[in-house]
């Protein structure tokens, strides 16, 4: 689960890059929103990774 979360995070990064290429400089609002969406995907991936860490630690606590 931790690896799944970490694999989702680069997808967010590429979304942010796509915002730069797809939207012209004049369309600042849409471009910023797209970058924020990329960050949201990264946050989702991080949350999944953290959740995976918590579950694995719960199993093998000393």
């Amino acid at each position, binding site marked *: 689960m*931790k690896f799944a979360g*970490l*694999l989702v*995070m*680069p*997808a*967010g*990064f*590429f979304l*942010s*890059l796509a*915002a*730069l*290429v*797809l939207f012209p*400089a004049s369309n*600042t609002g849409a*471009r*910023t929103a797209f*970058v*924020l969406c*990329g*960050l949201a*995907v*990264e*946050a989702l*991936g*991080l949350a999944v990774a*953290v959740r995976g*860490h*918590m579950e694995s*630690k*719960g199993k093998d*606590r*000393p």
Partner: protein
Amino acid sequence: MTPGQPPLLTDATTALALALLLLAPLAIAGLALINTGLGRSRSAAQSLLGSLAIVAVTAIAFALVGATLVGTSAAAGHIFILGGKPWNWLGMGPFFLLGLSAAPAQAQLELLFEFLAVALAALIPWGSGADRLRLAAGCAIGAVLAAIVFPLLVHWTWGNGWLAQLGVNFSLGSGFLDPAGAATIHVLGGLSALAVAWIAGPRRGKFPQGGFATAMPGHNAVYILFGCLLALAGWLALNIAGAVLWLHAPLAALPATAVNTLLSASGAVIATLAVTRYRFGKPDASLCANGWLTGLVASSACAAVVSPLAALFIGIVAGVITPLLVEVLELAVSIDDPSGAIAVHGAGGLWGLIAAGVFAPWPGQFSAQLVGIATLLGLALPLVYLLFWLANRVIPFRVDPDGERIGMDLHELGGGAYPEFVIHRDDTYR
């Protein structure tokens, strides 16, 4: 002052930058002392020796590999074209620092800055793995950071890479703004600390089955607080040198950068003091030290480009966030981070980068900072975790249970930091 202008270092600014960079190792010394103080007494010598070894390993790895990948801000890099824009993704420096003494002063100073920066970055995860990370593992972490991840981020940010050129290519302010290493040193270090804490796992007895997290306070508050004072001197030097080297700031603008650094740290420590006083009834020394450091970390991103009032506000917010985040990471997320590096360097650095976007006077700067943060979270964290995971297969990060029980000093060095102290049995170890 604006980033991206051609470097025009006069003799005076060259001498000033060199003098400042010779003071910057105080930040490394301060961080090493803080890491040692926040660990246990039976691991103190291993912690400080590890700091020395990591500084040495990062210097060698950066000289052999990293410096080539970074290049310099004036040199061309490897470029590909996407969407009609050039993306400078990798530097092209000389191999093994050949011709260094004949290089321009700006290039030599940039290199010195990067040597100090990578040492500081590699010490951050070392503090996070205190009391269970082997010396060889600390060196491996330093080598991985210095040879691969740090050079990439530094080239993109300081070496005229694609993040630095966001302003030129995509009209995003002045490009990604990070004059003193909030991203390249601190966020990278904080994310590395998270990866280390995940891979090495918690100290034995930290999260007992079916119980609350065990408090494992640092063994020496004097080290911690004196380390904070040393760190201030080093941070002032790094922030001003960064403003000179990466923003080409005029001499007249430098005192304001120093004042902003001090205000940010001051606001942060007072805010943390108030929060811990409110939550626990008395101020907590180690959390206040963490707050002070977070203020300094946040100032790394923005001290050179914001007003003093904004710097104070940035510090106060950093100081409020830190103790709460340290608590959440330990109690709610079960991450054992003895030095609080994830909150201090990771979250503090991210907050500084956001604040630089909010308070910097260039339109579009906020978006540039967001793209930089997306790069750190979306690319640097998975890459660091993958590399550390592979390194852990070759050099196991965590010491065996017996070594953890007797302490890293006796296990790895054969002698303790305080040989005249009576070693008590640790009741938390079961």
